[in-house]
């Protein structure tokens, strides 16, 4: 299985256009970009994909070892760029994928023209004067809750109690039809995301970057966005009026305008 199938790559826009690579965050898949990506379709080559373990990616390719750090996902991004022969890439990463973009750009600076980081956080846990937004106890509680399987969709109880359901139609009948994830993979991804610390990687980036900070973002609070901006050499900081952690969905217009202005 090739990289494009593995990551369920979908393409749009002019074939010779400058590539815009959109990377979704924890909890969803490329559907997150449904109101943002089309706005750039006339001018750019749009590349959407699902991280392995999310959306319609190849779940069989999920390797706990490889994806035990965000670098595993960054390697996939680079692999994808090579496979599709993407150069001068504008990388748009939401949430945890903002950091995945940082790692990819640090590893292969020549590949990327610009980075757009939406709600980035290099470290979710407060530590020695650093404000990440969550205490260590909070995160431990979250991880325990995930292990106990009582967070999230009620249907995730079913596999936990029954083991693997051998009735695939159960999966199809879910009312929450977007952002379906394998519960075990989602747990692992959450653990990797919320225990990651990529603060030191910010300084390795030379690519011009845009930091988009939402209002009232409980996942990546203002202080975190500021921290990223201050430690990312030559970055631009834009505060959005949009609330929450997903402006690409709740305020796509404002998000698109901010990105366009930066480009």
């Amino acid at each position, binding site marked *: 299985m090739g990289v494009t199938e593995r990551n369920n790559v979908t393409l749009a826009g002019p074939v010779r256009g400058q590539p815009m690579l959109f990377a979704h*965050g*924890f*909890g*969803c898949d490329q*559907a*997150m970009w*449904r109101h943002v990506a089309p706005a750039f379709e006339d001018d750019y080559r749009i590349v959407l994909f699902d991280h392995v373990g999310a959306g319609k990616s190849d779940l069989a390719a999920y390797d706990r070892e490889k994806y035990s750090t965000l670098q595993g996902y960054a390697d996939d991004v680079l692999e994808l760029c090579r496979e599709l022969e993407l150069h001068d890439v504008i990388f748009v990463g939401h*949430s945890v994928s903002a950091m995945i973009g940082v790692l990819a750009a640090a590893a292969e600076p020549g590949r990327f023209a610009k980075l757009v980081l939406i709600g980035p956080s290099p470290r979710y846990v407060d530590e020695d004067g650093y404000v990440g937004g*969550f205490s260590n106890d*909070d*995160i431990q*509680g*979250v991880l325990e*809750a*995930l292990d*106990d*399987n*009582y*967070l*999230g*969709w*009620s*249907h*995730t*109880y079913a596999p*936990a*109690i029954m*083991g693997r359901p051998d009735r695939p139609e159960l999966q199809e009948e879910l*009312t*929450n*039809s*977007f*952002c379906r994830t394998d519960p075990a993979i989602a747990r692992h991804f*959450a653990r990797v995301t*919320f225990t990651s610390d990529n603060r030191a990687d910010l300084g390795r980036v030379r690519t011009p970057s845009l930091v988009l900070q939402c*209002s*009232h*973002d*409980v*996942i990546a609070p203002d202080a975190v966005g500021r921290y990223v901006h201050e430690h990312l050499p030559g970055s631009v900081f834009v505060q959005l009026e949009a*609330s*929450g*952690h*997903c402006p690409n*969905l*709740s305020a796509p217009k404002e998000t698109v305008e901010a990105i366009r202005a930066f480009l």
Partner: protein
Amino acid sequence: MEGSRQDTGPLHESAEDLYENAPVGYLSFVPDGTIVRANRTLLTWLSLEHDDVVGRLRLHDLLAPGSRIYHETHVAPLLQMQDEVHEIAGELLRGDGTRLPVLLNAVLVRDHSGEARVVRATFLDVSERRRYERELLRARAEAEARARAALTLDHVAEGVLLVGEDGRIELLNAAAEAVLGVAAAEVAGRSAAEALPGWELVTSRVAVARRGALPAPEVLPFGGRQEERWLSVAAIDAGDAVAYTFRDVTAERDLDRLRTEMVAIVSHELRTPLTGAYGAAKTLLARRAELDDAQQTALLELVVDQAERLARILDQILLTSALDTSNLDARLLAFEAHEVVDAVLQGVAAGDRGRVIVSVPDRLAVQGDLDRLRQVIANLVDNALKYSDGPVRLTVAEHDLSARFTVADEGAGIPAADRDRVFEKFFRLDPAQRRGIGGTGLGLYIARELVQRMGGRIGYLPRDRGTCFYVDLPPA
């Protein structure tokens, strides 16, 4: 809370009352998360005051950290994409910091231009369900652990049987199935006393060791099947059950019995001729002067006879040992059947020779070891002469492409029950020697072993009267 539900006036079910006192929590919040309405039920569940919440708190202030993250990363995007979410498990924070497990349903309401205006959410208190689900998860983990343990038990060589306090069989491993001769699927859940014949003996004889103590195994006979088995059984208290472990020691016991028997038989068989020879020699020594030449010769012949008998017994024992421990190969050569018969007849005591009626073709080539075959046939003829008084027929004829030697007598025959056992080591028809016929019980065992090594067969042919053994050998 009882007070708030009392309604003594006429029944009107106002929308306000239905909202405020519904059996579910209601909450409305605007896109920036600010809570714009909450019903009394929810506020009561969370021990919060209306004015401290509405217009002051955001949704995430009411969510436990895990649910806060989950809401932002999963629920909020879904609401934006499909305008509603169903059955999402989460936890709300009560005023005192404790958590309330809830199930969330929500809809996103948009204005005419499609802009999100408000999210209406309902919360179900699922504390009971959470406990139940935890119990299920725990039970599943336990069941899996048990299944793993049972799987491991199946690879243990000792039989393991778990009997509950009510006397029912809770579990038995593969080794226990084999030792007890039962199938787990058939006996599991049944009373041990009913499902396992002979179980009372186990419970009455085997003491249940306290947990941590070293159980003392008992060796007992077991089973209602034809074949009696001897089991070494130990029992130990396993909380609300007793764990029995089994080892089949039948083979060890058989070996032990065989060893005892062998010592008894061999000592007896050796002592008889020794006593005879010793007596004759002593008589000769003490009374030589009184005895005439014929008497002296008779006594000396007795000494020689008994010495020969001793030597024969010792030969048998040595041969048995050789057959047991090594591959004593026969030398296979072609020879004429009558050569064997002639050699056998020469070995028969002169006084008995008249009883042997021989029928052998002039030419019938046989393949085998001439001397071993002579030993086998001689043993059969010897037995026939010993166990009967009439004629003994030694016949050779072609039979199914083999050369068949038969030795038949007209004696008492072999009881049906013993026919299968006559070829066993140390088996004797008359162990008490009531008929005064001795023997080591090795002759037929040796015969069978030798015939098999020559590629032949030995067996017993049923007769109305007397005994008839045959030996089939491949033709040359």
